[in-house]
């Protein structure tokens, strides 16, 4: 029974997603779509409640595949919240609302499994469930622009990365003879990795796979194209929750810092530098945000390297904080941008006049951008402060310095967005902005949350029980 309680969120998500899918096949008009939207929110909310009331450290369920430590639960609730947010803020396609919502819920199911995986197999299962849903979601509007291309690209590259990942995990399994993460960590710490070259190689391949999923440099090539091709909310979901889930799944492997620390250091540094530099070259908004998200993965990895060291907040705590802070901003930005209707890819110059047509939307985008740039009073500033403090206290001096310098470079492309939003004369003649009252109020609430938590970050630390 207690196993069933641990599995309840997954069960709710899986059955709920199927229910939404089946109901959606009947008829599609506005009333039905709205009903499906709220039904999805209720399902996700139910799963989140079930998860929140799981007793921490209760028995592992399903042969140890699903565990529930307090960090995993916090992560899971965060991802479900982002998912519910996406369902509410996104413009569901009219012709296939059922499929859209069902796929989102399935993606959420994948994230949930990832965030709480207790075994290598569950980890792989979670990644695949998540990726499969995303393939379809990316090219959902297949007649539009590069959607098909983006979806195919993600499919090919993610499959490629999965191959690395699963082969790496197989090598690890071959060396240690266990799939269980806790046991694995124990055996690694008792035996040491350096005497197991096969496992070393396996973990190396594993990091490559994870790097692909996170779009960390040098595995970042797909990010800009895929983000640009995806519908805004989906891009936001990939950048925030999906990456966050991979990070959550990566946390049990913290022992890798001892053996593969240099590689992770390089990946982190390269992501911060390349992400910030390449963004300078882009003139299309979604591509800019894609490179910004690459840089942010670099920042987050600083927290990973810091592990359980830290100032008041550990590196892991700072990562959780940052995942939330970053998700609010990037998902908000992608979704807000999707309200601007267009027949071609959104360039920065297309933003001209948004401030006049919809001051509220423009202001919210401004807040999101400021948060991404890490400027007070937005929450992104404290996210970075915590990550870098944790990094310094763990003895990494140069990573935070690189990160700060990188953000000084990166601020230029954020400014480019702000300038076009507010200051450039002339107006995009084809500018058309459409949103429902619900959508804009959610965007405004998100921006307000960013500023509120930016002024009172302690409230979020307390809420997430980060210390």
């Amino acid at each position, binding site marked *: 029974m207690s196993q069933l309680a641990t599995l309840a969120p997954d069960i709710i998500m899986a059955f709920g997603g199927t229910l939404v899918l089946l109901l959606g096949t009947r008829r599609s008009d506005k009333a039905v779509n709205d009903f499906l939207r709220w039904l999805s929110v209720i399902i996700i909310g139910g799963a989140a409640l079930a998860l929140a009331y799981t007793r921490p450290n209760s028995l592992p369920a399903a042969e140890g595949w699903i565990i529930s430590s307090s960090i995993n639960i916090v992560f899971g609730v965060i991802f479900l919240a982002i998912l519910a947010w996406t369902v509410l803020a996104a413009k569901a396609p009219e012709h296939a609302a059922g499929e859209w919502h069902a796929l989102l819920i399935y993606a959420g199911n994948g994230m949930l499994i990832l965030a709480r995986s207790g075994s290598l197999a569950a980890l792989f299962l979670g990644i695949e469930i998540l990726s499969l849903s995303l393939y379809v979601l990316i090219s959902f509007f297949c007649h539009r622009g590069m959607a098909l291309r983006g979806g195919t690209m993600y499919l090919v590259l993610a499959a490629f990365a999965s191959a690395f990942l699963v082969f790496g995990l197989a090598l690890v399994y071959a060396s240690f003879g266990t799939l269980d993460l806790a046991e694995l960590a124990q055996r690694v710490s008792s035996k040491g990795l350096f005497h197991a070259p096969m496992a070393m190689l396996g973990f190396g391949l594993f990091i490559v796979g994870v790097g692909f999923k996170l779009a960390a440099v040098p595995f970042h090539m797909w990010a800009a194209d895929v983000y640009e091709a995806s519908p805004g909310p989906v891009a936001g979901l990939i950048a925030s929750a999906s990456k966050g889930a991979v990070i959550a799944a990566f946390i049990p492997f913290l022992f890798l810092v001892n053996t593969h620390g240099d590689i992770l250091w390089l990946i982190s540094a390269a992501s911060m530098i390349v992400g910030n530099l390449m963004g300078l070259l882009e003139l299309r908004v979604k591509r800019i945000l894609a490179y910004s998200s690459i840089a942010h993965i670099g920042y987050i990895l600083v927290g990973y390297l810091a592990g359980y060291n830290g100032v008041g907040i550990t590196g892991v705590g700072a990562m959780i904080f940052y995942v939330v802070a970053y998700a609010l901003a990037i998902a908000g930005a992608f979704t807000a941008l999707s309200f601007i209707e267009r027949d071609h890819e959104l360039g920065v110059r297309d933003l001209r006049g948004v401030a006049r047509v919809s001051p509220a939307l423009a202001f919210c985008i401004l807040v999101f951008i400021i948060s991404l740039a890490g*400027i007070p009073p937005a929450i992104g500033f404290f996210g970075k402060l915590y990550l870098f403090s944790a990094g310094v206290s763990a003895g990494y001096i140069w990573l935070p310095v690189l990160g700060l310098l990188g953000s000084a470079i990166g601020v230029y492309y954020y400014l480019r967005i702000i300038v076009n939003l507010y*200051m450039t004369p002339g107006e995009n003649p084809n500018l058309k902005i459409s949103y429902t009252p619900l959508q804009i109020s959610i965007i405004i609430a998100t921006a307000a949350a960013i500023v509120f938590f930016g002024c009172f970050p302690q409230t979020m630390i307390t809420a997430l029980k980060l210390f």
Partner: protein
Amino acid sequence: MTLLTLIVLAPLIGALVAGLAVRTGPASARWAALAATGADLLLAFILMFFVRESPVATSMPWIPAIGAAFHLEADGLSAVLVLLTTMLGVVAVLISWNEITRKVHAYHVWLLLLQVGILLVFLARDIVLFYFGWELMLIPMFFLIGVWGHEDKLYSAIKFFLFTFTGSIFMLVALLYVYFQHARQYGMYSFEIANLLKTSLTETEQWWVFLGLFIGFAVKVPLFPLHTWLPDAHTQAPTAGSLILAGLLLKTGVYGLMRIAMPLAPAGATAFAPMVITLAVAGIFYGALVAFSQRDFKRLVAYSSISHLGFVVLGLFIGNAAGWQGATLQMVNHGLATGGLFLIAGILQQRAHTRNFDMYGGLWRHAPTMGAFLLFFAMASLGIPGTGNFIGELYVIGGAFQFKWWLGVITAFGILFAAAYSLRVFIATMHGPESPTIKHMNDTTWVENLAMGILVAGLIVVGFVPRVVTAPLFYPPDTMVPRDGREPATIAAIRPGQIVIPSLPLISAEPPPASFSTPEVRK
């Protein structure tokens, strides 16, 4: 005490009101901003009264997880700068009354948010809070320049942003370093400035820490080779933007040096002092010379700011009481006098649609009131007795003499250059043959007169009663510790938390008790 919180909150509330009243007419935003800044000015006067007895402080936990507190504190120095801030805040709202007609609500929201940031910088006694305010100034100023600025506004706004943001990152790195050193030595994490001052740093560490802080603050001051953002930003900003940039934002850099950089790394400051003094003196002459050759009114005033700020930084780094008092005086005077010049430049541009001197001329006949104001501000800028600038420059030059006699001699010539460009401003606009551009120009309106009148009053008060600025420097009495003896104190004499001042022949440095019995110039 809640007074400080109120001072910070008043403009924030004003900004909220102005922002929420966006559907009403522009007058609502203007009145909301005026009410907020006016209330703030009143509170600042009250603060001046309280701060004479003991420093006013308020502290509450903010982010206990990392040891950051919402700690505001006002000693004399902070109180003086808060008073200057609130004063210029009122002037900024007044001068925008007729000038700003586009997006009035948004304009006032940014203006008031900017004031919140500045006040936080001047009052914060916690590094995170300080940095929070420091960065809070960026976005509003960026918008003021970028949206309401003049022809080349985008370039200037971005340049301003990138310069100060990059500088502030160096500052943050240095501050975090001290934070971690403190934690290592004392076993507790705290961002309180008072605690960080206890950290013992080796000379090499201090050198690096000071370098980082110095880059951050010197960009804002701006010190000579880092100044290039300033002429652009000042020239392109709307009038109130220029006023606040010159009057307050530059002062935050100086204040950072006084409050954080020099006390935190005194040995670093000593090591850098020769270089900084050289740069400051170079800035005095460079700014003045370039100012003299400008054709653009605002650009001229902008370059003159570099020159004036050179005096301020010089005063700080010669490391004696006269220098510090002079620097503080000049901070206030420069805010008022240069602010006044920017107001006139803005008023002229608004009417003549040009800032070019060649297009002005013979204006006195049409606008005698404006002429009178311009004459006063130009004279103040060149440091005529009766205005605060005279006293401030006297203090700085006196301090420089005491430090090295030849430095005093060189610096004194800076005033000569100031006279050159100040007179040029006046002659080019008011005298000479009447230019067709200004044929139908009106004289200043009463709102503009009121705005400028506030500045004039401030300058005269400081000019005749300089102790209103210098005396608070000694509040509370043990902030600055006078020391007998004639040898010039170096920066090294400044110990964390204290500023050690030698007694000066020119100025008696008795720390005054509660009453205003301060250093006065002796005949």
